[in-house]
């Protein structure tokens, strides 16, 4: 058998990033404990999905935000090696700073162009106390920020659903509602399994139609010789297009968990 042509083969990286609200309000009613438990319990399910999709190399990280934003898990960790260490809650809700921090990691490099669209999961129980729009703009300025699968989980009644909807950026997808610990566990599990599964082997998505010049000259690029660089293709006026979901988000089929008592409702 002849030696295979080409360089090293590799599976495609799939970055999965938790973005967790650790503000003071998350201390009340066991919310931060429920979040820690939910993510910890989701890890084996993520590992199972990753095993079933070996061509996607799932790499997990986490950002936390309260007073400012920091990486809770800074190193992109293969899901097989991922272990969750508990978050604690205190302070304000600097969600904008969290998105700015995230944006810097979605640049190319360190991201690769051949990566699978990353999955970003924003979990919050309140309203941002900093410049959220600036942070969102920074995120969406990055090609991978724009193409990421963005999911949001609203914990309790006080979560700012408008802000979470802006993060999601797709009119047909809504923030998941987690009004009690069971619902939070279900939402976290769904994101960790169904969404991860869908993101692991996406199909090609057709670009929205683009109006271009109708003359032949606008389409053809003539190269005088094999080595001369080609001119960039002319770009005609771009028709406004509806957002294209890169990864079709599967429906959340599990029933919403009902709380065991009124005290369990956030």
């Amino acid at each position, binding site marked *: *058998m*002849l*030696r*295979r*042509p*080409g*360089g*090293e*083969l*590799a*599976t*495609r990286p799939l970055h999965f990033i938790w973005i967790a609200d650790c503000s003071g309000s998350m201390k009340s009613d066991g919310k931060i404990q429920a979040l820690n438990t939910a993510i910890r319990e989701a890890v084996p399910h993520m590992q199972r999905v990753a095993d*079933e*999709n*070996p*061509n*996607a190399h799932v790499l997990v990280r986490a950002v936390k935000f309260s007073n400012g934003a920091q990486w809770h898990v800074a190193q992109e960790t293969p899901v097989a090696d991922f272990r969750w260490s508990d978050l604690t809650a205190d302070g304000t809700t600097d969600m904008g700073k969290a998105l700015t921090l995230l944006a810097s990691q979605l640049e190319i490099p360190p991201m*690769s*162009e*051949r990566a*699978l*669209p990353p999955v970003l999961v924003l979990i919050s129980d309140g309203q941002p106390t900093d410049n959220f729009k600036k942070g969102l703009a920074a995120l969406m300025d990055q*090609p991978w920020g724009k*193409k990421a699968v963005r999911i949001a989980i609203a914990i309790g009644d006080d979560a700012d659903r408008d802000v979470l909807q802006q993060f999601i950026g797709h009119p*047909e997808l809504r923030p998941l509602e987690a009004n009690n610990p069971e619902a939070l566990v279900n939402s976290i599990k769904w994101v960790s399994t169904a969404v991860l599964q869908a993101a692991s*082997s*996406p*199909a*090609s*998505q*057709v*670009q929205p*139609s*683009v*109006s*271009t*010049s*109708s*003359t*032949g*000259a*606008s*389409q*053809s*690029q*003539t*190269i*005088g*010789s*094999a*080595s001369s660089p*080609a*001119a*960039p*293709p002319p770009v005609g006026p771009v028709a406004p297009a509806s957002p*294209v979901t*890169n990864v*079709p988000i*599967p*429906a959340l089929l599990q029933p919403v968990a009902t709380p065991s008592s009124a005290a369990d409702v956030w």
Partner: protein
Amino acid sequence: MPAVIETAATTAAVWQVSGASVRGAAHLRRRLPNQDAIRWSASGNGAAPLVLAVADGHGSAKCFRSHIGARLAVMCAVRVVETAFGNQELIDPSDLSAIDCLTRRIVAEWQSAVSRDLWLFPFEEQELALATQSAGADVRQPLARRPSLAYGSTLSVAAVTESYGLYLQLGDGDTLTVSPDSHVTRPLPEDPRLFADQTTSLCMDDAAGNVRVGLQRWSAESPPPALILISTDGYANSFKDDQGFLRVGSDLLLLLQEEGLPAVETNLESWLEEASHLGSGDDVTLGLLYRSSVSLSSFPVAQPLLASVLGVGR
């Protein structure tokens, strides 16, 4: 006195075309068909052009017949380009209107072929139900408006003559040329929209207007490449980086020169399967046009340039 036969041993360059397509490792696991397609043609008279076409069906929930769309794409592309050459329509390849006409005809033929397939085999409720299950009820409306969405596919074409190479590409995938000294280049302009698995397609509005075109005129100063490769994106996505993928060009040229095309053909499918298994998991298709020198037999009468010897592709 024996006749003196004057001989002149000469070499001549011939183009040969080949390729392979394998079902992706992920598609095997999910029991999906190979959604790529490849086709090539050759004429036997030595002066005709060679045409190679590769296509990649999108495979999304609403593109549930994209494996058929890909097969129709390569069939239509090869037929249209061959006909254009046969009708002397591409004598001057820098005639932009002729190139424009060619791309529009390919798209129109594909749309007609899709319409015919749909007429013979209308959508079944089971197909629509599966699409709805995967992508939601919203999938039915766009399909009702534009049924060709179900057949969506990319398309890449390379055609070589004695004087030039013509490259057409709609959607993702890669076209590479390899010079005789193993320098690998991309002859087509990039499309910055093709990022994160998004692609242009035969099923979109003004598909022909989104075709990228490349042309290489050959001369003594700019000789033809030794090798041209067209592949679907499953192949490039299987390499750790772009440099690793580009090395396919130089490595394959060396293998072809040292071992010959039959030996490469024997190994090609297993290489592509390995790439999919250890890399992207996607269907992987690679077509090649190889320009080799052959030694002509010594005859007292000059021989015409030998044609390549290949049959019609899948």
